[in-house]
């Protein structure tokens, strides 16, 4: 089947912060090539003067009252953290 000439998998995977194996690259290239080939028919639709739809029923200016509410206790918020210490999430060093 087709593979997408425009789809630079290495570049897109880097943007997506997703490490791919060589086997994944090979299969995704072919499978996404098929999907992109299918999607190309959208180019045939005349969309001149058509506004884009982001939501079927757009709602704007949804405000919440500026009132303090109880939030999650720290223990509950950190319950699913992969690594924690002293009520903080432990991450690899990001600044030298």
């Amino acid at each position, binding site marked *: 089947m087709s593979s997408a000439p*425009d*789809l630079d*998998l290495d570049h*897109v*995977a880097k*943007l*997506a*912060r*997703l*490490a*791919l*194996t060589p086997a*994944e690259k090979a*299969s*995704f290239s072919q*499978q*996404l090539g*098929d*999907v*992109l080939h*299918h*999607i190309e*028919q*959208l*180019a045939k*639709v005349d*969309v001149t003067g*058509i*506004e*884009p*739809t*982001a*939501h*079927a*029923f757009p*709602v704007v200016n*949804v405000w*919440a009252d500026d009132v303090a509410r109880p939030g*999650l206790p720290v223990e*509950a*918020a950190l*319950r*699913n*953290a*992969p*690594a924690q210490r002293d009520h903080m*999430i432990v*991450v*690899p*060093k*990001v600044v030298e």
Partner: protein
Amino acid sequence: MAVDLFFKSIAELAALLEAKTLSSTELTSALIARKSAVEGRVKAFNSSDDADALAQAAASDARRAAGQARGPLDGIPVGLKDVISVSGQPLTASSKMLANFVSPYDATVTVNLKRAGAVVWGRLNCDEFAMGSSTENSAFGPTANPWDLTRVPGGSSGGSAAALAAGEVIAALGSDTGGSIRQPAALCGVVGLKPTYGLVSRYGLVAFASSLDQIGPFARTVEDAALMLGAIAGHDPLDSTSFKAEIPDYRAGLKQRRPWRLGIPKEYFGAGLDPAVGAAVEKAIAFYKSQGCEIKEVSLPHTQYCLDTYYIIATAEASSNLARFDGIRYGHRAKGAKDVVDLYAQSRAEGFGAEVKRRIILGTYVLSSGYYDAYYLRAQKVRTLIRQDFLNAYREVDALLTPTSPMPAFKLGEKSDPLALYLCDIYTIGVNLAGLPALSVPCGFTPGGLPIGLQLIGQPFREADLLAMAHTYEQAHDWHTRHPQL
């Protein structure tokens, strides 16, 4: 022959509970026993907390004894797709990424069900992050179709549909982004309703594509679906896309009978439609005609572009939503990463399955610099045209009748090519793009004994009409009284 307790409807069981000839503890125990008997073959559950369910049942019985029962859902065990948060219970989205995640809070629909007295029980299997049409993409293995264990239950909410069809729950919730409630409902022979976008709060739902996702009920009967929808619908300040719509009494509305004008979109009856499915839907159309409904052929000319539009918009939104799974605050974290960017990339590589990765890649691509206008922006414009097609049709008709799925349940492993699987959704995805309500109601069986679903697509926020139309059909047929042999 007496109907087994676990195959009864909410309405029937509510009457027994009300009469005190049955307790919620007895009902819940019967379902736990039923699950033990069939779950090894159906595999609809990712996990369940039976002790917690029995405690909720005991609390319901105590309320009732004190004269404080809360209505028809009080004491009824309801299963939730494993993408809907229940405080203190696992929430995996059927992904290795969230294998050990425990919800710190309840979704709004969970709060609403608990408030109605339901026994919220069971984490039901689905495609990983609700991405798929067969429940084969689950990190915990596929669910089987109770009507034929060698076949898929549909997806992505396949566990919800299969658990209900197998008599393991009395009703269930799923989520529908492109057909993920309606298609499995059709393939498992139960009722499935996708509400209008904004009718039901998405707070506490694991996000897939935020402009398309809606939570909705699975039920044995249309009346039960009406009861479930009434419990979960309504404005929620925690979901800014939730609508301030009036919530009618959907159950009372079932009695309305009108000579509805029903549209048959010709694009939904073309090549690729299984003949047995087509014949069953034609019979259902003939039934409505016999009831005095006006049947009118209509056209939704942009139907052929729905699939492509959907796969651009849904994957774009998914790539953005799933960026939060980076191994930092929660979810799977890879060991031995050399820096923080490597930690993101490795954690995501290890935590996500193949279909999720494909969709993240596609979504990232269509949003990336140089391709945004050609793909994403163009898809959003075509989405406008697709939505206008439906609104134009509604000038002439009250609702549309179509097959829910082009084919009945297919074999596990039969559709290994992603594009072939995407084509299962051709009759359901337009509804999500247009934000409309739609439901699937059983309308027959194939010669091989597989269930077939009829889809009714309604006007925005007119679920009451849709339920009344489906109820009219259901009451004149007995498909919903048949159950799989397990």
